[in-house]
């Protein structure tokens, strides 16, 4: 056990856990943020995606000790009022079905749009192919990412 300090969605949390425990379980069951999901445990499906300083990582396979000092963002932290351009586009395109993978999909998409405001289909393939959706919402995810990019670009020019 070790006492660790984590910065999640701008707040600091002290946890006393096995430093080898994957960050996922700390976020879900010690901090209590349930939006980040467990899908595979081996970084194959992306349901557990969160950001370290804006970059996507798979929290199911990341020992919590490695998260100390990082700016961690989870799905709960990307907007206060469900109004991140990606969330708006996701609602407009009615993307989710069961919704279980969508936190991870949105975090991967948000990371893509952080440094690419005009993603091509190939960029989307590259950024999103680590996230599985068993319900098969990929076509809508693609459309929603393009729409979110437009929203961001329109805001910039407005």
């Amino acid at each position, binding site marked *: 056990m070790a006492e660790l300090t984590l910065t999640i969605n701008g707040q600091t949390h002290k946890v006393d856990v096995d430093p080898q*425990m994957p960050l996922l379980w700390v976020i879900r069951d*010690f901090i209590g943020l349930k939006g980040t999901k467990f899908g595979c445990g081996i970084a194959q499906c992306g349901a557990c995606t969160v950001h370290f300083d804006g970059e996507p990582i798979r929290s199911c396979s990341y020992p919590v000790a490695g998260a100390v000092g990082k700016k961690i963002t989870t799905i709960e932290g990307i907007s206060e009022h469900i109004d991140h351009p990606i969330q708006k586009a996701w609602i407009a395109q009615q993307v989710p079905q069961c919704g279980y993978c969508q936190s991870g999909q949105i975090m991967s998409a948000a990371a893509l749009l952080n440094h690419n405001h005009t993603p091509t289909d190939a960029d989307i393939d590259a950024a999103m192919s680590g996230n*599985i959706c068993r319900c098969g919402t990929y076509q809508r995810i693609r459309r929603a990412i393009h729409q979110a990019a437009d929203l961001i670009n329109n805001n910039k020019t407005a």
Partner: protein
Amino acid sequence: MEQSSNIARRKFLKITGITGAALVLGVGFSEKDKIARVFNMSADAGQSHELTPYIFIEKSGVITIMNPKAEMGQGTYQSVPALIAEELEVSLEQVIVKFTSGQAKYKDQSTGGSSSVNSNYFPLRNVGASAKEMLIIAASKQWNVPVAECYAENAKVFHKPSGKSLTYGQLAEPASKLDVPQKPKLKDPRDFKILGKQVARQDIPLKVSGKALFGIDAEVPGMLYASIERCPVLGGKLVSFDDSAALKIKGVQRVVKTERVLGKIKYMGVAVVADNYWAALQGRKALKVQWDYQGYDQFNSRDYEQSLRVLSKKEGLVAHNEGNFDRQFAGAPHKIEAFYETPFVSHSPMEPMNCLAQWKDGKVEVWLSSQGAEWTRDTIAESLGISKEDVYVNMQFNGGGFGRRILQDFAVEAAGISRAINKPVKVIWTREDDTQLGPFRPMTFSAMKAGLSNDGKVTAFQHKVISPSIDATTAAKYDKSKADETMVEGISSQPYEIPNMKNTYVFSDIHLPLTWWRSVTASTVAFPHESFVDELAVAAGKDPLEYRLEMLTKPSDTKRVLTKLKEVSGWDKPLPAGKGRGIAQWVFFAGLCGHVVEVSKQKDNSIKVDKVYAVIDLGTVVNPDNVRSQVEGAIVMALTAATKDAITFENGKTMQSNFHNYRMVRMNEMPVIEVHILAEGGPVIKGVGEPGLPSLAPALCNAIFAATGTRIRKLPFDLNKIA
């Protein structure tokens, strides 16, 4: 009397969690004529177990609608309450939707067979319409004006001439004193505001913000976590275990035996209970367990495949017989035969199986993702030997179902562990557990035969299914003397006008747990059937779409679907060299859909799936955008099943374990999908969740044949390795 009514009321509050409801309407069966009617339950809410409350209107104006169907992605969170809301004249933003909890009174809360909307379409509209009429009558009495001068809109009743209005909350109590109209007037579909419209789903904002609560997200104070070690050879028995190392791991509290129940199948397991899930997993790794494989370590799926091929030579039990197949086939100038194979597959919903159970004083409360609250309740009650009334089910959003969450094995495990340790516990399966332990879709092989006349017409046709049976593996009794209706579902109801047809079934025993998988048997028998029809068209030298239409001279839904597909896919426009298109359709218990798939041969000889056109026939549509969503999803699931991995066994063990070797179609492999809906209204309402799946695989393989000349008769296959 007063006391018993208070008890009943308390029980009722427990059931629904709704306190100050003034007007409660439910459905029940009339003692007199046994016809389902709407009942006023306001005064004795919950006293009568025969009555099923659906609408609660509180004086404060809060309106709650009970939803008996699980939300697993298919949209029932919107589509089922919409049936009530439409007639009640409220928007879905104005109501709270609650899942039912398995009480017997809600009867069928099972979610499957694409039936949620069609089975509730009229009953729930009736409930909404009755409530609206009562509220209107209550208002007209209050104002002392004729009923005809009043109308309902936006959760209020208005008096047309004066413009005055009363809210449903203000009217709930006086309305509750009125008789329930026996035949409420249902709205003309032309006046619908929600049904048939592109309405946003209310669960989606929750699902894009991490706020939707799934089974795995449930918590109660003092809750522990469990991971269960089970025999890696399905069918093996627990001999003994050594938990000394496991108990030394910090956080591990208990190690207990568990039972996993799948119908008549019972598997033992060893659960490690800890104060966090990671510790439970570490403890599980530290267990030393001795299993007796019971000889099942001799099982290899490759041998089983071979045994099905041998069995296919048997005549089979007759499932359908029309005309004289044997004579016509024997005398046919052209005989075509082909053998098709589909594998075991796993459901693999993104949310692994899990259940939180809290045992207290002989009763158990559970929180889980399940496809049927009453299935959960009944299975736990039966397995634990307690009464159904002592099981309370809290339905959460399902992170996918696809048939897997019909079985309640994981819920029984959790309830049993909680009873054993007398503490609340959440069981979470790993992805490896989910992939390896079943239940699986049954491996299903098909032997096809047809006789063609000299002008290419089908004069004799046979589809023989050779497979293990879902019922035989889980149900207490199984009749081997009859063709298994479940395993041949749909093969005899395709509307092709073929004069002599004999379809048969050959049963094969197996020890593995099997269950329904999205679209059930259609997901395995449509592929051989519709691929074979394509083979016949090729043998006859005809266009596969025209060939099908020639066998559909009478008007039929299938004919309309094929005609529409021809139009929307530009079927008659020639494709450049190296590209091909294929068509297939399937009509079965859940509904009807057809696909045209376009593929292209790449420079490296691999095949790219470029585009899929789908036409789904519905009769009446409740939410067109959600229908498109479901068909898109069914196509992806079918594409995964056709082109990724099978579940295979060596020495009794499942060879696939997680998404690296049981792969899913991903973003970079997505074809463009275009969904068209045939909905001409009328009383017929067909299913949505499943029909988009079965005809994808044959349409794809028919397209690959068109592009390459290679006929695929075994699933799955690799798009990168087609000759």
